[in-house]
């Protein structure tokens, strides 16, 4: 028993990590990083790079020895610079599988395309804050006609101009796209102070060439120094970062939103539970009569209307037309009444049908038949046996609904102006506030996991029939 409980408690960890991984995959790996948005509209690439550094967006996604490095391309005369638009699925997969899981470069592009010029193609890439003690790696794609040769040169502020070490020299054999990787390892006279701007020059002679998807990386010593583990450690300390939209700390926004959300969801939860169980008992008592059937039909009818329609019509008729309730706001009890009523109406159909099924399942169990055979009255059986035994599936349903208390009702809150978590989430969806969504999804899931844990523990406590393997 104890072992089971401990094991169940421990199982929360992989699931939580899994949720974090899933959310991370959605928002970070596929969605890209929000540095450009943080930097705003007049952002220079340098500014974006700085933000990326501050927030750790330049690190590998999960694991890797290379950190993406910001660079400035300085094309030679007649050379146009075109940022690559987007990345292909293939490139994405490549980046996901390779060791260097940082995908998006300075301003969101995967690299730069350099259109060819007459004669030699010379492309200078400036690496700001060049640290001579670090290793760098440059990668690009070349399309060049046969017989071209390629040289990569490095000029460091500490080195004399005539002393440009050649990092790479090769001849390009065919017209196909060739991937070139140039390792920029520390060389002889690079003992100058760091922080200077180094310049790497790509020189292609012998024809018109296109250099594309250029990226620069810097070595990092700890491969686990990655975005994912950074998030794991941050979240473990309950630090969810800041909202992009309101600049507020997300933990604080959540703390602000919990109470209003609970003010709406708790009454809905309790009323719906009590009413649904009562009606379900009624249905079980009068099973297969017109009353039972009416309730079943009503509950299915209720389930078949969109929640949004309930809210819209409810708000329109009761608040606006009739003026029984305030239209919007969160000032007192009368502001909460209508949302609660609508919430109950919208969700009771499903619950009633579910509880009725459970009750009826119990009604046809052997022990109930035995009880009837022994001459127990309908009522006795219903309350003493059926309700007691049906409690376990009902309990499951109830506990599993607990996260709903937390996430609040998205629609209800945004229509009725309840400043709770649901509304916060809807706002975050509208404004694309990824950190808030990230945190909300994560916390919502953790609450669910904990609720599930509680259900399982309740099971062992409430139902001796359940064998603990």
């Amino acid at each position, binding site marked *: 028993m104890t072992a089971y409980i401990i094991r169940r408690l421990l199982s929360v960890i992989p699931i939580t990590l899994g949720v974090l991984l899933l959310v991370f995959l959605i928002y970070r790996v596929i969605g*890209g990083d*929000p540095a*450009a*948005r*943080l*930097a*705003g*509209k*007049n*952002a220079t690439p*340098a*500014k974006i790079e*700085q*933000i990326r*550094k*501050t927030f750790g967006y330049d690190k590998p996604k999960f694991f890797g020895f290379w950190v993406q490095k910001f660079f400035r391309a300085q094309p030679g005369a007649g050379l146009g610079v*075109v*940022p690559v*638009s*987007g990345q292909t699925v293939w490139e994405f997969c490549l980046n996901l599988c390779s060791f260097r899981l940082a995908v998006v470069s300075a*301003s*969101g*592009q995967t690299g730069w395309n350099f259109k060819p010029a007459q004669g030699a193609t010379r492309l200078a890439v400036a690496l700001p804050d060049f640290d001579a003690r670090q290793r760098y790696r440059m990668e690009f794609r070349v399309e060049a006609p046969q017989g071209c040769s390629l040289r990569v040169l490095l000029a460091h502020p500490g080195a004399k101009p005539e002393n440009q070490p050649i990092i790479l020299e090769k001849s390009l054999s065919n017209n196909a796209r060739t991937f070139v990787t140039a390792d920029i390892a520390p060389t002889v006279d690079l003992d100058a102070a760091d922080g200077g701007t180094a310049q790497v020059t790509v020189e292609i002679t012998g024809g018109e060439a296109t250099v594309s998807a250029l990226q620069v990386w810097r070595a990092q010593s700890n491969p686990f120094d990655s975005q994912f583990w950074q998030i794991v450690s941050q979240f473990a300390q309950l630090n969810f970062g800041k909202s992009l*939209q*309101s*600049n*507020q*700390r997300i933990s604080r*926004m959540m703390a*602000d*939103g919990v109470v*209003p959300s609970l003010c709406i969801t708790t009454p809905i939860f309790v009323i719906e539970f009590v009413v649904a169980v009562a009606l379900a008992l009624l249905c079980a008592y009068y099973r297969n009569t017109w009353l039972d059937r009416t309730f079943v039909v009503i509950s299915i009818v209720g389930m078949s209307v969109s929640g949004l329609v309930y809210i*819209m019509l409810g*708000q*329109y008729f009761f*608040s*606006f037309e009739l*003026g029984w309730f*305030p*239209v*919007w*706001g*969160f000032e007192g009890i009368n502001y909460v009444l209508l949302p609660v009523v609508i919430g109950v109406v919208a969700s009771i159909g499903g619950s009633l049908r579910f509880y009725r099924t459970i009750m009826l399942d119990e009604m046809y169990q052997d022990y109930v038949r035995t009880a009837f055979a022994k001459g127990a009255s309908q009522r006795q059986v219903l309350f003493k046996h059926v309700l007691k035994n049906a409690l376990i599936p009902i309990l499951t349903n109830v506990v599993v609904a607990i996260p709903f208390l937390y996430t609040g009702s998205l629609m209800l809150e*945004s*229509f*009725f*102006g309840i*400043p709770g978590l649901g*509304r*916060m989430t*809807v*706002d975050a*969806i*509208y*404004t*694309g506030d990824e950190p808030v969504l990230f945190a909300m999804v994560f916390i919502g899931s953790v609450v669910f996991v904990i609720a599930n844990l509680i259900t399982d523990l309740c099971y062992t406590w409430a139902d001796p029939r359940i064998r603990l393997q």
Partner: protein
Amino acid sequence: MAFSIQRGLGLLFSALTICAAGCGPSAAPGGKPGEMVYYSEGGDIKGFDPAKASDVDTALAVYKVYEGLLEYDYLYRPYRVVPILAESLPEISNDGLTYTFRIKKGVRFQDDPCFPGGKGREVTADDFIYAFKRVMDTKNYSNGSWVFAEHVVGVDEWTKASEDPKKPTDYSRPIPGFEAPDRYTLRIRLLRPYPQLLWVLTMQYTFAMPREAVEFYGDDFLNHPVGTGPYRLKRWQRNYRMEFERNPTFHGQLYPSEGAPGDREKGLLADAGKPLPFIDRIILYNVREYYTWWQMFLRGQIYSVGISKDYFNKVINPDLGLTSDMAKRGIVLRKEPQMDVYYIGFNWEDPVIGGGKTPDEVVRHRKLRQAITCSFNQDQIKQTYASRMIPSAGPITPGTTGYDPNKIYRWRYNPELARKLIAEAGYPDGKDTRTGKRLHLTLDMGGAGDAETRQLGEMYVGFARAIGVDITLNFSLQPEHWRKLEHKESQMFSAGWVMDYPDAQNVLQLWYGPNEAPGVNHCNYKNPEFDKLYERILTMQDSPERTALYQKMADMMVEDCPAAFMFHRLIYALLRDWVEDFKPHDFPYPNVKFYRVRPH
């Protein structure tokens, strides 16, 4: 119509939000007797940090608490600036490169625990310089650094120095262009003439800020505004309600006694010379649903509302006045042209509709753009959107010099011409002569989830289809829409620009070559001739010559057609009639202090 609107500040908002800007005060339910309370709609704000106040809602909140050297004259038209924390307008050197401000003495920041003894300190020139530096500090990633960058002596070097991630930014390092010879004198030295400087100094990025508050509150500064303005923040339930109250240590400002012609007749000068502000308390609700907002307005819980096109016929009679039903409810109609322009941009780098590489392509693509522009029926949009717009004839917005209300757009709706042009472009009836396939274009609308944006987009699709072109609409949330534009991924996109200051230069920069994406030139338009003219007007002071150049540039663009200009908005909004001293304004951020609420 919440399609993307760009602003120099880099912001987007819905048209409906704008019409709330600075409207509708009232004595209200819940106010104490004799107290004037203003209830209105306020959006999500980014906190009370002027350096980061890059959207309308945040700006509206920040202007209630903070102030700068100058502000727009409330009544006078055309717009002009008047001093507010400056004693007077600055002395400008003859070469236009040095501006010297005298700062008002005795102005105090509001009382706040960040000051010794909790008493607000007097404002000095250093508070401005500190604020300017904060805006220029990369570590603050303020969206307002454009106001000084490349204009003021030494600013760019300072910004560069702040980039070092290892060291905190050194605020003691001086910026040569910002000098404080004494406590009350501020001198700004420019690299080249900057005719827009005075406009820019009315913006929130340049507001005086106490260094004590920033250091005292640190990360939480955005929740603790400490300014000199007419109001101070009393209570703030984020995401729901904001409450401001009169600042007892406000330095005092008087209602203007001079206005535009006709203001006196409208009773706008009745309060001339009286101390501001009139309203004691301001309560802003953050209502998200327009539908809800409208219901609240009709029930008297909020005092101003924009009119959705769906409601237009019920609210506005055929003579474009208020219906009697509405008038009886004590509602007045506001109708104001906006200083903005909406257009459909064509990506100049697109292989189909862009600028083109060969001379033949240049001509054909231009004709194609012109044909598409010709197919858009502005009058139909105007009608569908219930006259809430003025068809646009070019980039120059109403209210700025160079705008000609009688000008007729060269590519005004003309199906015959459109068909002719598209045939000449190589797509007779929308079908490519080379492949026989129908021309398919994509139009990025932004504004996902907004019904009006979607409906407008569907209208565009219908128009283009009439000349045989298929348009696929893409809707995305604003951040995503931006990302697409910044990466030049759009083929066509719907966009709008709301002016930062009443000077056409502000909108013409959208087509200046070096501003190409990720800059504001999302069309990526490149025309060396245009660029040359733009560089010329940049340093020109307002003059008929400059106005002529503006018009020339506008014509050049209409001919080249990197964008199809659609309309300027005309706001129809409803207001409760107990609001007094209300005058529409294109830069309405600080205007609440001028409003008066009649008890009712």
